[in-house]
């Protein structure tokens, strides 16, 4: 059943970023994580759009997090990766890993 459900590249990044953020994965840190680690400009809108899509597929789940002063007292929407999401991510990364086997010479920067 999951055979056709492949992760897109940006979906992978968002899932990984959520994992990186640990327990405090809401919009801002997720977006920062991606911008910082990939060194590319990503829009907050794209992050949210992806999170919403992932949530609709059941790969992430969200809950309401505590507000902070710099947010003007507004609550956060905190995301975590579901079991299903984690499995898919693993499968996806596995296939990448298998595909890259033996290509270290080509792919590694010299």
């Amino acid at each position, binding site marked *: 059943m999951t055979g056709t459900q492949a992760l897109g590249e940006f979906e992978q990044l968002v899932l990984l970023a959520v994992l990186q953020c640990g327990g405090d994965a*809401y*919009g*801002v840190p997720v*977006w920062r994580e991606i911008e910082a680690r990939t060194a590319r400009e990503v*829009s*907050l*809108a*794209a992050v*949210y*759009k992806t999170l*919403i899509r992932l949530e609709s597929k059941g790969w992430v789940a969200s809950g309401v997090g505590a*507000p*902070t002063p*710099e*947010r*003007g007292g*507004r*609550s*956060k*929407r905190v995301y975590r990766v579901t079991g299903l999401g984690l499995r898919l991510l693993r499968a996806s990364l596995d296939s990448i890993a298998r595909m890259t086997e033996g290509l270290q010479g080509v792919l590694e920067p010299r």
Partner: protein
Amino acid sequence: MMPPRLAQRILDRFLAASLADAVIGDLDEIFAAEARHSPRRASYRYWRRTAALLWHLRRRGRASARQLTGDRLMTTMLRDFVRGSRLFVSQPAFAWAAVVTLALAIGANTLIFTIANVLVLKPLPFPSAEMLGWILVTMPGSSVGRAGVSLPEYAVFKAEAPTLSSLAAWRRQTVTLRERNESDRVLAQLVIGDLQGLWGLRALRGRVLTLADEQRGAPRVAVLSHRFWSTRLGSAEDAVGRDVVIDGTLHTVVGVLTPDIELGNLSEIDLWVPFSGDPALASRAERGWRPVGRLQDGTSHKDANAQVTAIADRLEREHPDINRDWIARVGTTREALGGANTWIVLSLLAVVVGLLLLLACANVMNLLIARLIGRRQELAVRTALGATRGQVVRQIVSESVMLGLAGGALGLAVAWAGLRGIHSVATEPFFRQLAFDFRVLLFAVGLSFVAPLTFSILPTLRVLRDDVRTTLSEGSARSVGGAAAARGRSGLVVLQVSLAVTLLIVAALVVQTMQAEVAADLGYDPSKLITAQIDVASWKVKDERAALQLRQRVIARVKELPGAEGAASTTVLPALQFLPQMPFDIDGRQTLDERERPNAGLSVVSTEYFAVVGVPLLAGRGFTEYDAASARPVAVVSAEAARRFWQSPTDAVGSTIRIADTSGPPIEATVIGVARNLANPVIVEPSVPTVYVLDEHRPTRGIHILVRAETPAALAGALRAAIGDADADLPAYQLRTLSEVVADENSSNQLLSGMFAAFAVIAMLLATAGLYGVMSYAVSQRSGEIAVRMALGAPARAIARQVVGHSIKLAAIGIALGMVCAYGLARMIGSLLYGVTATDPPTYVGAVALTIVGSLVASWLPMRRAAGIDPTESLRRS
């Protein structure tokens, strides 16, 4: 530094509720971090992110909107409506300023429309109104108003003016009506000819009057007005056939008219009776008869007019003593129903309120443009999100219409309050007839739609011209709405100032005219006098001697009233009523040319008249008991008569005059004194020469009793009782203090002055508010420039001067334009002005001064703000 609240609100509105809080919180958090480096950049990025977020996440919103189907048009309209009314919550100051402005203007227009409604639009009560020709008689140059013709003249017109067929005539007469032992003074319409048939009147009960009722020997009949029938007879079913006694003669009620003719002064009539041939009303001096006829087929009012004026010219040559200066012409039904100056005043009022509406629209347009400039980024975002320009325009228009409707609703309340005010001060029946009907409502609703469409055009065009991308990338709200916008708004302000100046000058001229009429000196102090009218009817007391004794008995009784300081009688209320004109000869000189013959108004008074009214005698002496007892008539003449017909007051005293009394034998009297002139408050011309003779020497029937008292109003009840005691069958009517009479006389003038003044004040306030808006916006826009100048050492005074100078420059252009417009308008109404000229310098100077003060006030706050700018603070911000 705060994140842009507008963006937050937009997100709040367009994102799913579950997401909005989190997203806005995230944006705020990022903003807080970025604002530490550059607040401007942070703000700009906030907006860009907002735009992007809306773009990516908007689908949800669209889907839910689509579910709102049903009647799509209704849904859209409802949404526009809701969105428009949110304005009152989100920007109450703006919304209320606009609504109040519109309400004042729409209210003023609606009020004037109620007047026009009655005068112009209401269908005339006569079925054959177009075919009627009315002979209107006026005396140009005096404000006597309309008079009529005498019966002999009527006969001439009837015989010699074939263009007016079945010529009929009527006059008003107060009569004593006794019905079931209750007697009262009522207003009768005496009719000659088939008037009711000519007018096409219909009977609700019974029948109307016909020519047969006029025949000699026909039974005496009367027709009641609907109002009289319903209020006095309680709509009695058996009213037709009842007997009533009118002035001592038995009449039978034969009909009740339909209520639809009770329009204008026709609504005052209690009953209609055919003229019985009373010789007192048939003399040449009784010019109370109003003729009206049907235009012969194929003839116009012009043809009839030519015929009538030719006859009138001839009559003037034949009888210059009575017809001098009277002009007769043929008018239409509408002219006949309105007063002489009604049309000029009405058009002037219409112009004034029209300008007021224009001014209000300009003001609201200014507010809208200022607001739109502030909203550019929001609009740009919405356009970026896929809102078509049409949708954006629709929002502006729907908001404008909301403002218009709210303004219209409040405006109706304003007009209603104005109408209540008019009803409470007006005494003329015309004003009492003003009322709201569906046409007035329709007019107000129409204005509520037309006004917003007018003032939203310019802002809408601006939005259509705007390039979204430049707006978004400009990033800052400060630099937008550049030179072109500022010029547009300045142009509006110039327009407003010029409109206000125009209104101010014209209104001031009209108010001065009306006040000059009001303030015209009466020649005596009316505040200590009370009056009542009695008629000793000839059907009751046949003998003149007995009638005189009855009148004297009444006055003697009244004089004894506690609080009364004196009582007198007169046939004409001093300076308040029109005097019957009588020619006379002096010392037996017969003037050959009738036109040269002395002519004066005749007032028949009792001996104490001058003392009671308080008119000083300038030469000779007043009347005494001895004069009254003597059989030799004596006369007192007014200073104007002495000036015109003798060389000096002292010359007048001692000479003998022979008055050609039109209602009796000539009176030969010795002039014993000269009294000071009286002046009528609304007759605006040199005082009328007057001759006073004694009651004893000139038989008369109807008199006004004048009582002097410290508090005249307190005497009213006792006065009525005293007259009743003297004779039970002598109803006193028109019982009022003289101050009331004067106020009634002036009430229309006061009312119209008040309206003009109020409109001018509103115009000035609106123009000042408009100027203030533009000035404060200009200052806020230029705060950066001002800060730089101050940092470079410009003193605060120089900055203030610059701001005020800008404001004065705009005002000056407006003032110049306004003065030109006002002059043009004043020239057009030149004939209406009295006591002031169309170029009256003080009026123009005053209006200009007031406008300059207004513009100084308008620039005061902005100037203070500009001078108070802290350069470092301001520069850091920008």
